[in-house]
């Protein structure tokens, strides 16, 4: 059983040679036939699948299309062609604290952010104590978010995003959240999720982290699949290639 299937996904960006932002400009440019587009292929025919309970890594240099691919998997972007099949619940750890509002208190933000992630209100109420405890915010939870430090925000964001046991967890880069102690706590939480059967898609620059966690990896280069397979088989080639280029 696959938790995630990505089939022949391509993503194209149509980039006008100049940005047109007003009606007037558009009318004039259209009349003069000056609207030119450049097509940028961010992803070209990418296919892979993630089995249930598997930790799957995506590697590649900057600009290879890793983040675009993650966003497509999470449903934030719609691919130009191809399809993505997701089975079960998804928790994206791509951007923590989406929709946080500085004027509202931490507590109010838990509900706002949680609902944006698609949880129900009842579920959040049940998990409320756990979220507050994990974020270590204590009394500060009633303070407006604008007075939080960036570490506090990140801790709250992580606690909300991981209060479920998802079927698929999408993780972008190293989760540099808070101090060493909290980072360890985050890693433990992800580890325990993996142990209980959650599939993970992990994007990272860190070869050692991929090596430690993933069984299979996908190597992206300029939007194309350069290699896919066992970590042991792909990583040495990737390292060699990125050193020479």
């Amino acid at each position, binding site marked *: 059983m696959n938790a995630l299937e990505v089939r022949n996904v391509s993503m194209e*960006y149509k980039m006008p040679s100049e940005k047109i*932002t*007003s*009606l*007037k400009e*558009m009318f004039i440019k259209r009349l003069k036939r000056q609207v030119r587009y450049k097509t940028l292929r961010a992803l070209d025919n990418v296919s892979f699948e993630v089995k249930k309970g598997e930790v799957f890594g995506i590697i590649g240099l900057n600009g290879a299309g890793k983040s675009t691919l993650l966003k497509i998997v*999470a*449903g*934030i*972007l*719609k691919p130009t062609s191809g399809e993505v099949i997701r089975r079960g619940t998804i928790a*994206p750890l*791509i*951007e923590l604290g*989406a*929709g946080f*509002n500085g*004027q*509202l208190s931490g507590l*109010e933000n838990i*509900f*706002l952010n949680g*609902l*944006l*992630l*698609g949880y*129900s*209100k009842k579920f959040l109420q049940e998990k409320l104590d756990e979220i507050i405890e994990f974020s270590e915010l204590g009394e500060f939870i009633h303070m407006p978010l604008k007075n939080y430090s960036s570490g506090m925000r990140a801790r709250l964001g992580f606690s909300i995003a991981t209060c479920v046991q998802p079927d698929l967890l999408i993780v972008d880069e190293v989760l540099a959240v808070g101090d060493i102690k909290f980072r360890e706590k985050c890693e433990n939480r992800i580890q325990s999720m993996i142990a209980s059967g959650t599939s993970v898609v992990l994007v990272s620059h860190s070869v050692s982290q991929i090596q430690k966690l993933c069984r299979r990896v996908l190597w992206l280069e300029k939007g194309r699949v350069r290699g896919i397979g066992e970590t042991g088989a792909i990583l040495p080639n990737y390292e060699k290639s990125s050193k020479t280029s």
Partner: protein
Amino acid sequence: MIGFVRNLIRYKDLFVELVKKDIKLKYRHSYIGVLWSMLNPLLMMVVITIVFEALFRREIEHFPVYVLTGRVLYMFFAEATNAALDSIQANAQLIRKVYVPRYIFPTTRVFSAFITNMAAIVPVVGTMLVLGMKFSFYNLLVVIPLLLVLFISVGVGLMLATFAVFFRDMKHLYSVLLTIIMYMTPIFYPESIVPERYLPLMELNPLFPVVRMVRDTVMHNTMPDAGDLMLSAGYTVLFLVVGAIVFYRNQNRFIHYV
């Protein structure tokens, strides 16, 4: 369509919460909070009444209530559609970061504007009491035009939100359009001063039949006029369908433009 309904059920809590957040943020740090939504139309009514009552007293009975109903309806429409126009831009951060049905942003703003503006029912009833007007069962029928104008605003809001993503000029253009709509709505003048041959032109304004129905039910204690009902129901369907189509066709491109 099935996907749409399932999405709506999944995100219904978010919908409610966003409406609440809008309302909460609107009145945060204001001393009298929601009272402003009652006081504002009341003060406007006083101003307009002082300026225009002498002019139109003979044509319009209960001038203050006439002004109040027209003004509140127009204010709701203006506020709701303007807020919807900005909604995609204002939530750019979210659109780039998480998957949420996009239509939630313009629609929640229309609904929150609806709720805050409905606070004006209190001053309307108050003014009617002061003027000693008659109350009847027909007054309750005011929910029909109110619901119609709510959904007209949703449709118009969806359209404006889409246009505003691609053309920033929309905001300025729409402020002019709103002024035209305001003067085409009989807020402080009687319909009778509009020459007969221009009446069809006036009826192009979707607020026109709605305002008439509100006054029929609230002030004249009658059923809403059948012609007005048909016309405004037609506008509701038209704007909802066109708005939804325009929005759905373009929503996947929003992320590249915000």
